[in-house]
C-alpha cells in the first residue's frame, strides 16, 4: 500500500478550508482522509494556477473539478480496496470498449486495454513505491474521458514505435519492394512566397490553424473535425471554404506589398509544381480503379506551357 500523490502539502488552498470541506463531502467515501484530499487539491492548484493566483481563482478551479471521480482515482492510486472495486465496476467494461474503438481489432484492443490496466494498477515502481497512472488524473475532465485520452496516447505511441520497426517483408506485402526514396520535386520556391505564407498563417487564430492542419495535413473528414470542436459539420465546411479563399487573397496582397506585381504574385502561387501533382492525383483517382501503387508521383511539365497537363494525362 502506498500513499503516492496524497501527501499533505501546504499551498494555494490554505485559505479555502470551507470550500475544501464542502468538496470533501461531495467526494464520496473511498477511503481518503480530509488531509489527503486537501493535499490533492493543493497539488492540482499548484499545477494549473500561477503562484500569485487569488483565492477566488483557486475556488473556481476547485469548483470545476470532478471531485468524486478525482477522489476515486486517487484512492485507487493509493491502493484503497473499496475504491478499486468501484473503479472496476464502473470502468472495466468501458476500458475494453474504448480499446475496441481505438484499435479496431480484437487482439490489439485486448492487448491495449491490458497494458493500460497494468499502468493504472501500477506495475512500475519508483523509489520502491508502486506508481499508478491514476495518480496523474486531476479531475479537469471526466475520468472516462481521461481514460479514453490516455488509451489513445498509448495507442499512438505504440503505432509510431511499430511504424519505425516495420520489416522489409511487410514492405513487400505492401507492394513497396525496394522502394526508393520519393523526394518531392525540387522546385525553388520564391522565399517571398514562403515568408508571406508564414505571416498569413501565423496571423490566423489557433482554431483556424487547427482546422487547416486537421483537414489538409492529417486528411481528416469534416465530421471528425466537427466532432472534436463540438460544432456542426457544415460549420467546418464553411470555415474551410472561407479560409481557402481568404488565405489566397491575403498571400497575394502580402506578395504585392513585397514588391511583386499582381500577375507575378498570382503566378507564384499558381505555378507551384506541387499543386500540379495534387490535380493529377485527383484526375487519376477519377479515371481509373484504385491504384496498385498508391502515392506514385507523376511526371510534370514546365508550368508555363499553358493549361495544367502531365505526361500521364490525355
Amino acid at each position, binding site marked *: 500500500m502506498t500513499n503516492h500523490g496524497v501527501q499533505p502539502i501546504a499551498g494555494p488552498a490554505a485559505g479555502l478550508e470551507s470550500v475544501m470541506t464542502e468538496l470533501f*463531502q*461531495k467526494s*464520496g*467515501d473511498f477511503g481518503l482522509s480530509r488531509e489527503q484530499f486537501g493535499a490533492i487539491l493543493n497539488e492540482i492548484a499548484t499545477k494549473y494556477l500561477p503562484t500569485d493566483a487569488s483565492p477566488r481563482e483557486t475556488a473556481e478551479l476547485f*469548483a*470545476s473539478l*470532478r*471531485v*468524486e471521480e478525482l477522489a476515486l482515482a486517487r484512492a485507487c492510486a493509493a491502493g484503497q480496496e473499496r475504491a478499486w472495486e*468501484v473503479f472496476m465496476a464502473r470502468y472495466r467494461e468501458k476500458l475494453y470498449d474504448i480499446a475496441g*474503438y*481505438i484499435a479496431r481489432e480484437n487482439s490489439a484492443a485486448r492487448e491495449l486495454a491490458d497494458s493500460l490496466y497494468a499502468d493504472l494498477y501500477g506495475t512500475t515502481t519508483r523509489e520502491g513505491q508502486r506508481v499508478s497512472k491514476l495518480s*496523474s488524473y486531476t479531475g*479537469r*475532465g*471526466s475520468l472516462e*474521458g*481521461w481514460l*479514453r*485520452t*490516455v*488509451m*489513445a*496516447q498509448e495507442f*499512438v505511441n505504440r503505432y509510431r514505435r511499430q511504424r519505425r520497426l516495420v520489416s522489409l517483408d511487410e514492405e513487400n506485402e505492401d507492394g513497396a519492394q525496394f522502394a526508393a526514396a520519393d523526394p518531392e520535386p525540387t522546385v525553388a520556391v520564391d522565399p517571398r*512566397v*514562403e515568408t508571406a*505564407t*508564414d505571416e498569413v*498563417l501565423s496571423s490566423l487564430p*489557433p482554431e483556424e*490553424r*487547427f482546422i*487547416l*492542419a*486537421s483537414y*489538409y*495535413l*492529417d486528411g*481528416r*473528414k*469534416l*465530421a*471528425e473535425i466537427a*466532432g*472534436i470542436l*463540438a460544432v456542426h459539420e457544415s460549420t467546418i*465546411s*464553411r470555415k*474551410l*471554404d472561407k*479560409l*481557402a479563399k481568404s*488565405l*489566397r487573397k491575403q*498571400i497575394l496582397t502580402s506578395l504585392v506589398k513585397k514588391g511583386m506585381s499582381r500577375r507575378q504574385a498570382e503566378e507564384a*502561387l499558381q505555378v507551384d509544381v*506541387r*499543386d500540379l501533382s*495534387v490535380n493529377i492525383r485527383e484526375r487519376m483517382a477519377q479515371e481509373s480503379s484504385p491504384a496498385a501503387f498508391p502515392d506514385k508521383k507523376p511526371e510534370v511539365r514546365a508550368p508555363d506551357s499553358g493549361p495544367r497537363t502531365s505526361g500521364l494525362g490525355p
Partner: protein
Amino acid sequence: MEQVPKIVQQRLRSAARPGAHPDANMLSAFSEKLLGEGDRTQVLGHLAECAVCRETVALANAAKGEAPEASAVPAARPGWLTWPALRWGALAACVVVVGTAVTLHYEWRPEERPHAAAEISAPAASPPTVLLESRDAGELHEKLAAKIPPTLPYQSERDRAMAGKLAREPGATNGRTDDYAVMDRLQAGRAGANAPAADQVTRNALANSISVTAGAANVRQKAGGAASAPAPVPSPAPVSPPGAKTAGAEEAKQRDDVSKVGPVTETVTVEAEAPQMATESPSVKPVDKSAVNKSVKDKEANQAQKAPARMVGGMGLADRKADMARAETTTAETTTPLTTTAETVSVQSKKSMSRAGASAAPRWTLSPEGGLQRSIDSGRTWQTVPLAQGVVFRALAANDADIWAGGNAGVLYHSSDAGQHWTQITPRAGGRLLAGDIIAVEFADPQHGKVTTSNHESWITSDGGQSWRVE
C-alpha cells in the same frame, strides 16, 4: 471544397514546432469542452502544430462511441444542402410561403368588409331597426365582427387631450363618454364639412346593431317608436345626462335600455379581430342580460390585461394566436343559448384566464454545455440561470412551478416558485451523500421523485426532498 495553395500545406507542416504536450487531463477536458477560454486557446494552438496530439484527440473523440457512423460518412464532399444557393433558396422559399399565407389571410378578411359596409350603410336612408329586423341576427353579427375596428387609435397626443376634454363635456356628446363618441367628435373636427356622412350613419347603425345583438328583444320592442329617428348611440353612463333629455322620451328610454348593455360593444370589438370565428356561429340568440353583464365584466378584465399589446398597433404572430383563442372563447359565449347561466359564463372566463396564465409560465431547458436555461416567451429566447459556477447540469424536471435540476458531482437544485428562489439539496441516506453525477431527475408531483446517478443508483424521496432512500 476549394484547395488551398500547396505552399500553405508545406508551410503548415514546416511551421510545426510543438512545445511541451498538454497532459491527458487537459486534452480530455478540451474534448469535453470544459476548459476556459485561455486554456482552450492554448490547447488549440498546440494541436495546430502537433500531429501526435491531434491524432490522440481524434482517436479519443472517435472512441466516445457516439459518432462512429457519422465519421464513416464521406463528408469531404459537402451535401447538396450546403450549397449556398440552395440554402438561400430554401430560406427564400420559406419567406415566400409565409408571405403568401399572410397575404391570403388578409385578403380573405377585406372580402367581407365592403359587403358589410354596403349593407350596413343602407340605414342612412331607412331606419336601422328595419335592417335589424330583416336580417338574421347571426348574419348581422358576422358583419359587425368584420366592420368594427379592433382599436380606437388616437392620431396624436392632441387628439388624446381633446378626447379627454370632450369626454368631460356632458352636453357636447349627448352624454356619451365612450370612445366612439369621442372619435366622432374628433373626426368631425378634423375633417369638417368634408367628413363623410355615411361614416357617421354607419357608426350609428353599428352602435344600434350592437345593442340588438346583445339584447335584441329589448330593442325590437322599441323599434316602432324609433323607426324614423336617427340611430341612437349606446352610452355606458348609467344615468342619462342633461343633454339626453332633449331627445324624445321613447328614444331616451331606448337609450337607457341600451346603456345597460353598453359595454357589450367591447365584446364585439374582440370578435372583430377574428371574423372567421364569428362566421362559424350559426345564429345568435338573445342572451340573458345578467349573464351578459357578467361576461362583459370578465371580458373587460381580460381586455384590460391585453390592452397595451393591442394599442401598439401591429400584431405579432403570438398576439394573433392569443386573439384567436380569445375570439373562440367570445364566440362560444355569444352563441350561448338564452338559458345560459351567469356561472357558466364565469367559468369560461376563468378558463380563458387560466389559459393566458399557463402560456406565461416559464419554460426550462438545459443547454448543450450543461447550463440551466429559462424562457418566458414560449421558447423564443432563452436566458441562462446562473445557479452554480462550474456545474454541468444533466437532468431537469419541471412540474408547474416545481423545478429540479441535477448535475455533476451530485449537485441538485430545487425551486418551488418557478425559479424565483433556488435551494441546493444534498441528498443523504444512511450517512451517505449523493456524490455521483446526476443523469436523470423524475418528479411525478412535488413530493414524490427519483434521482438517478451515473453509478446506477436511484435516490428516492417522497417528501419533496426532505429525506431520501437509495435503491
